């Protein structure tokens, strides 16, 4: 059985890469993982195209959970999911959770073989409701 993949989307490539480093070092390699960040011209921002690429890279038949930082990261991630379309879109969820903690917690859950729903729920446990 394949584990749920994790995608990290930050406005800053440094934040995205650093978060991915934490996941790799704390959780390990058994979770498909990809990150993206920056506007492609060295500035802060997110790119729908880069997010789609990251989803492809972390793709798992079990699904993909996306961790985002601020507003645009979330809307662009949702746009990327929409452009990817069905049937894959239904297996991709944008989490409402803090990006670093959410990524580590979600990846821990994913590493144990948790379903997409369980992985997302674990990340959401961190958010004040």
């Amino acid at each position, binding site marked *: 059985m394949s584990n749920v993949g994790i995608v990290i989307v930050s406005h800053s490539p440094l934040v995205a890469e650093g978060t991915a480093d934490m996941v790799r070092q*704390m959780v*390990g390699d058994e979770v498909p993982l990809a990150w993206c960040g920056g506007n492609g011209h060295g500035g802060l921002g997110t790119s729908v195209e880069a997010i789609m690429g990251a989803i492809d890279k972390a793709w798992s038949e079990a699904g993909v959970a996306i961790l985002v930082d601020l507003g645009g990261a979330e809307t662009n991630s949702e746009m990327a999911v929409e452009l990817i379309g069905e049937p894959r879109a239904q297996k991709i969820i944008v989490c409402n959770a803090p990006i670093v903690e959410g990524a580590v917690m979600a990846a821990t859950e994913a590493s*144990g073989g948790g379903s997409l729903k369980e992985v997302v729920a*674990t990340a959401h*446990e961190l958010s004040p409701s």
Partner: protein
Amino acid sequence: MSASAEATVLITHEVGLHARPSVKFTKLAKTFSAEVEVALAANGPWFDAKSIVKVMAAKAPKGTLLHIRAKGDGAGEAVGALVELVRRDFDEGADHVRTA
């Protein structure tokens, strides 16, 4: 008949059951099908050892006597493996090769 097991172990790791040790602990717990719970006191409250959020939120510091209990298939092995992980300081630090 359902197997069950229980043990206590002293947390000797310098930073206690914090981020990285919590991830290791939870990941190991998840490898067993038994229901595994931990508590910071004998009378509870008990929480799910497979929940990274709950284990990390417990913030068990060095010197905590960690209570671990399991129920179901492989309960004894689960408790034994988790106790060993805590004893080995989560395989971190200079003295992780120390043997019992």
